[in-house]
């Protein structure tokens, strides 16, 4: 007869066995099955060695404490990706790096900073990423992210080697005017990793999972959200594209950052009667001006309508005044400049 009250061995053994059984059922078995039933998406690039080292820096600096990497299947997470995350997304990144460390806990549980699932798309500029790590408040005044000064070194201008990455720090922000800030290897690795964070496309013909509409406070999905999904897609808001894509570098007031990112307000390229040069720069990127960081191509991130809308927005705001362009022009230029993205 079992008597837990008097038989310590039975008590402890039953508690142990019960817990082991439950744990096996709820943790070990599902974990094993999640690990084994997983494969990468066909179009997913493998992580390079440098990106792998960057991920190690990401873990070691505790970035996981504030940044998630999961697009949940709920409407509010649309901001962070074009589709909900799936297990395959983590095929390469969530691997045990060595015997001393566990698999990175990338999904995270706190969004003190933005989700980084797709940050390579939103903030694909290496110059921006470097400057942002060096001093986040230089590019985003309200940011509360720490500065990572120890990932950079300040050297005399003459000591800069050709393969060094020189940060476009505005001259008035430097302690020694003659110095340059260069990125250490760890900073380069980390930025390479961050820029590589892009949601891989699903295979042809596979539809992504739908986002679940926000439940109303009473638990029923809101009617407006349901009706909105069936209606025709609204015209693209150029201002919204500007805030989410361009403003990070060119700043919300389009005045740029001296020495880092050129202004769009009053820029001759923007105000040119012929929009073609501006269209070309957005599609193909631009690195012809040594006093500013290079601009990455936006061809893969934005479609023709979005590019036309944002160009028209910039050309008619911030004191700029130039005639508009249209999606057809963008489409023509895309075929020449970025033909690999033309099918989009």
């Amino acid at each position, binding site marked *: 007869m079992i008597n837990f009250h008097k038989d310590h061995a039975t008590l402890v053994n039953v508690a142990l066995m019960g817990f082991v059984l439950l744990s096996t059922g709820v943790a070990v078995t599902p974990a094993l099955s999640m690990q084994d039933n997983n494969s990468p998406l066909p179009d997913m690039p493998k992580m390079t060695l440098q990106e792998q080292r960057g991920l190690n820096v990401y873990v070691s600096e505790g970035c996981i404490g504030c940044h998630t990497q999961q697009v949940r299947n709920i409407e509010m997470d649309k901001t962070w990706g074009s589709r909900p*995350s799936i297990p395959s997304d983590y095929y390469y990144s969530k691997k045990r790096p060595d015997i001393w460390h566990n698999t990175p806990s990338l999904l995270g549980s706190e969004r003190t900073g933005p989700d980084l699932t797709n940050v390579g798309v939103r903030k694909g500029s290496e110059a921006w990423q470097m400057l942002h790590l060096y001093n986040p408040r230089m590019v985003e005044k309200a940011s509360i992210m*720490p500065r990572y000064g120890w990932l950079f070194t300040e050297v005399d201008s003459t000591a800069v080697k050709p393969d060094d990455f020189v940060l476009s720090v505005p001259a008035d922000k430097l302690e020694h005017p003659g110095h340059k800030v260069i990125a250490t290897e760890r900073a380069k690795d980390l930025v390479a990793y961050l820029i590589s964070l892009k949601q891989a496309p699903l295979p042809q013909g596979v539809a992504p999972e739908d986002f679940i509409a926000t439940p109303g*406070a009473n638990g029923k999905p809101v009617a407006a959200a349901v009706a909105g999904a069936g209606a025709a897609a609204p015209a693209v808001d150029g201002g919204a594209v500007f805030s989410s894509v361009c403003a990070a570098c060119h700043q919300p007031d389009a005045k740029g950052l001296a020495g880092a990112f050129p202004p769009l307000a009053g820029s001759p390229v923007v105000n040119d009667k012929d929009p073609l040069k501006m269209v070309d720069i957005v599609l193909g990127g631009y690195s012809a001006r040594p006093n500013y960081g290079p601009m990455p191509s936006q061809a893969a991130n934005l479609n023709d309508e979005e590019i036309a809308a944002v160009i028209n927005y910039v050309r008619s705001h911030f004191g700029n005044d130039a005639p508009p362009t249209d999606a057809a022009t963008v489409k023509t230029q895309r075929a020449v400049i970025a033909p690999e993205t033309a099918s989009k």
Partner: protein
Amino acid sequence: MNGLQRPTFLAIALCLMQGAMAQSSKTEGWLSSPGVVGTMVLLGIVLFVAVLIIAAKVSRLIQQTKEKHTVAEGRTGISDEDRARHEAALEYRLRGNELGGSATAFDDKALIAGATSEPNNPIVDEKIYSRARLDVPKPLQQLIIWYLAASTFWLLFGTSVGEYLGLKFIWPDLDEVAWLSFGRLRPVHTNTVFWGWASMAMIGLAYFVIARTSATKIHSYKRGWWAFGLINFSVIAGNVCLMAGINNGGGEYREYVWPAMLPFALGLILTFRNFYATVKRRKIPEIYVSNWYLLASLVWTIVLTVIAYLPFYQDGLGETITQGYYMHQGVGMWFMTFTLGLIYYYLPSSLNKPIYSYSLGVLAFWTQMLFYTMIGTHHFIFSPLPWWLQTVAIVFSMGMFIPVIAGTTNFLMTMRGSWSAIGKSYVLPFFLVGVIFYFVGSSQGSFQAFRFTQNVWHFTDFNVAHSHMTMYGIICFILWACIYALLPKMTGREPSQLLVGAHFWLAFIGLFAYTVSLMAGGTVKGMAWVEGVPFIDTVIATRGYWTWRAVGGTLMFISHWIFAWNFYTMVRQPLPVVPSEIGNPIPAEL
């Protein structure tokens, strides 16, 4: 007075939140959402209890003034001479030597347990000193004091780090030192208060429970000292690694790399074997329910740590499932289960009566194991983890009401009839707050799993509020209660009552400010996310709440220094136990 309190509180909370709200159909009527209403009611309960404690104190004070007043004014129809005599009598003050005369006296039989020069202190009521002295074997006494001393040190260290981190939300440019950066220090704070402060205090307090309820000697003091060294070493090594940038993988509470965590696991194994061997040679047939919790908690946590650190199923989302399981069970199977075991001994013994229901304790024990184990995945709702696992987690989260209500009922029923003792004791308010937070914090966690509240609150500062409500509101308050209950009985040294009161109120008010501001801030932020407000604007909107969090955190932090001082006064020089007829100390060898 108490009836008024709840609506007033709701109104304040409303004003706090309404300001920054962008309302649309998506969040309309949020205030009436079941999860939000439930949470508000729970917060109301905490406030209600605070008012109750204050009311008890104030009413005692008024009572005393009234008594004096009636004595002074209530006599009409007496002669002037009598009145003058009476007034003179009112002015009379004891000089303290009336009974003994002016000759020096010595309390040969240790009849006097406490003395005061201000019996009617108007600020803090005189509490009853604990009269009973326990004759604890010297080695056990030393072992317990050292465990508690180490834990107090880690409390100060861990919360200094926490306080500093809280300030970084307001001043992100406080420093630019790699070792002190937010990302590296955050796990130092959590791991230190977990494995350093709470774990050391829990084990130290349990050594007394195990020996006392088994009516025997601890099996091996040597093992106790080994575990002491191993656990401290683990916390030191783990923290140094974290600050140097060596992090196991960023999963919460398993940020220590395995070589740093291994000594901790060994310490637990040693502790378990020691406790088990002691219970095995108990001198009474039954195993007291406290020991069920203590032994099981150690066994479960050893299993848990092994599962969390074994590498065979940690690739891909396997790691995420393990993480959800581990971080929930770390709290549930270690801190909560173990602390419940401590309450089952220290609460009834402070009240000097048995626990209300032994059977409820047993029911809560088995349901704790069943329900708590299943709910880890509720930290990853709407994530790419299997849907069935998320459903199981939500369902069992609701099941958690069973052990929580069973436990809370048991403790409150044990306290029933002794409410007047709360005003007179400095230990019981800590217990009461801990027990109330046990109910409030745990239930609030279940409400967080509702769909709407999950949408709004997950990933926001609300999580931080919840974890402080539970780890601080439940665990810390109960541990303090136990420490204040045990040490004076063991060492014969009482802390200053004013300072214990200061500790209690600073910690309690600080915690309340901390959680309410982060809950309000988290709600504002989450609803703005639902509305699609740009991320950086939600950072700006949370600023004010972070400031209030820092204020609350500072109050909590100050209270820890006061606690450390109180601890020091209790242990600096234990008084020898003088056998007396009424003190009835427990003999050294049982």
